[in-house]
């Protein structure tokens, strides 16, 4: 019993960990990096410096407080993201920007290192334990001024250079819904959608049909086996169905009811002779004569 409880508890813990993991810092990706900022985005202090954009790939808000950003593979805990700042919470599918200006005293989003335009820049994000690598990237040397290096589509693997940088916004700007445009262009009558969708609806319900046809057969044969085992009667194919048996039973019952000569309410008293019963014993039925 205790073992069973422990197993159930472990299962819940596992489920909780898996569930929690889905919205943890592991969903964060380094998304876009600008190494040389000459005539580009300006920070709150009016200064220009390189920047690193992070992107939350999950559907839940992720707080990156306590995580580490570094440009040194041998020093994973180089810049700890300060705790207690509400702005470190990154909403679902949103971005946040860190300035690589080497002046951490300027605030939460100012790193204590700068990006070097003359060599490869290693950038990594570590979880709050300082050991678990969440994401890393090496920005090749020779980056051009005001041209960023980032993922072609937010969160996906392919990296490209962006002449038009996109700090704190989507790398791929969508001003239309591609799916709807496709339908508008290629299926203006709606026939394609109708055929495809109806095929899927039918397929889904056909799958259920076959599934439950099979399950029904198994259930019927199992029920037949149980009945045979319990009654000892072998049920043959084409035997009288339960409905017919029920009809015969109710007909017999009605017939039996009609056989009565008298109404059910007539009380028949049959005299039972017994030699002795404690109920008729005199010692319980008579009072003792009071002593005078």
């Amino acid at each position, binding site marked *: 019993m205790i073992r069973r409880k422990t197993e159930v508890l472990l299962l819940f813990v596992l489920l909780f960990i898996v569930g929690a993991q889905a919205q943890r810092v592991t969903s964060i990706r380094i998304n876009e990096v600008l190494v040389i900022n000459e005539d580009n985005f300006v920070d709150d202090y009016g200064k220009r410096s390189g920047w690193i954009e992070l992107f939350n790939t999950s559907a839940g808000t992720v707080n990156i407080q306590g995580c580490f950003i570094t440009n040194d593979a041998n020093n994973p805990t180089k810049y700890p993201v300060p705790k207690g700042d509400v702005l470190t919470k990154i909403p679902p599918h949103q971005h946040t920007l860190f300035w690589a200006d080497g002046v951490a005293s300027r605030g939460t989003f100012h790193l204590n290192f700068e990006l070097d335009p003359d060599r490869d820049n290693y950038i990594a994000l570590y979880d709050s334990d300082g050991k678990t690598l969440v994401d890393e990237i090496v920005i090749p040397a020779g980056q051009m001024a005001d041209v960023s290096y980032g993922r072609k589509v937010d969160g996906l693997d392919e990296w490209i250079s962006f002449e038009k940088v996109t700090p704190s916004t989507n790398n791929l700007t969508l001003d239309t819904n591609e*799916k709807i445009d496709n339908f508008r262009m290629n299926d203006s009558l709606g*026939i394609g959608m109708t055929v495809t969708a109806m095929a899927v609806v039918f397929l*889904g319900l056909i799958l259920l049909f*076959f599934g*439950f046809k099979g399950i029904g057969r198994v259930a019927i044969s199992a029920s037949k086996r149980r009945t045979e085992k319990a009654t000892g009667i072998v049920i043959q194919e084409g035997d009288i169905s339960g409905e017919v048996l029920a009809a015969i039973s109710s007909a017999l019952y009605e017939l039996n009811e009609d056989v009565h000569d008298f109404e059910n309410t007539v009380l028949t008293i049959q005299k039972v002779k017994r030699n002795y019963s404690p109920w008729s014993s005199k010692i319980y039925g008579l009072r003792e004569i009071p002593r005078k």
Partner: protein
Amino acid sequence: MQESFLSFLGENLQLFLTYTGFYNATPEHLIMLVVGLLFIFLAIRYEFEPMLLIPIGFGILIGNIPFKDAGLQIGIYEEGSVLNILYQGVVQGWYPPLIFLGIGAMTDFSALISNPKLMLIGAAAQFGIFGAYIIALQMGFEPNQAGAIGIIGGADGPTAIFLSSKLAPNLMGAIAVSAYSYMALVPIIQPPFMRLLTTKKERVIRMKPPRVVSSTEKIIFPIVGLLLTCFLVPSGLPLLGMLFFGNLLKESGVTRRLAETARGPLIDTITILLGVTVGASTQATQFLTLNSVKIFGLGALSFVIATCAGILFVKFFNLFLKKGNKINPLIGNSGVSAVPDSARISQLVGLEYDATNYLLMHAMGPNVAGVIGSAVAAGILLGFLV
């Protein structure tokens, strides 16, 4: 002194007057109020879906009391107002899955399990959705709007709200009211087409009584149903997941309290909130547009197409069935998922032609298959158009 006080009172009264409904009323408001009163009348006088029409009708009254837009946070579209907070359940789409939880907990799928071929009728009736989709496209609606309008043909209010909140939020009020109105009008819309498309001989077909379904089969149904349908259409997960979950609560036999809550107090609460807020969302300024009129027309058409598709499919299906296994085409209308109204219509029309032919149990099969079918169709539209 006295004069200035009187003028102060007069000004205040004048100001107060500008805040009253009488001052702010427009003909559009009055039209919507009449519509609301009509819903309430139909619900009380003819008992057309009173559980839906009373909350929606009263919601329409609430939503169409004219008021001055002075940031008082009273309108349903004003952020932070009580109605707006309640309306978030519709906008964000979390009322419909909760309704589906309750539907699952109150639905007996035995008829479907005992005769699984009835599922196909539920699939055929989804033609109503896509028939309306095609027509809506021709009327100039965008594909996403056409999808949201088409779902009215599923005859499933929660699904219609859920899908329109994702595909075309600006049309949601008209779509929701249209879907619920036509669900209430099922007894008027369906019978003429049922009679038109069937022969006298077909209407008296007697179907085999459904076999007894074991409790194990009933328990397996929601689990297998979820896995099969949602692996095929994961976007149907919010609705199908809750539907089958509710059904497992009912059939497992060990969660009676949860099942009773889901099919009782929970679904009642959500129905009240959903009905009132959907009704209130029909503010004249937002609702009385040409698009709304078009949506109402398309909604009626989609119900007709769905009904006809279900009946014609049964007639077609019968061509391949042996003599004793034929299906009465009068249950074809039940493929739309207005549970259990359309099944009740099958029963009533069937009894008109044979007073001892009870079709209700048979009709419940395609009826609940229609719920699954429309949720799957919604999932497909969501997957294709979002």
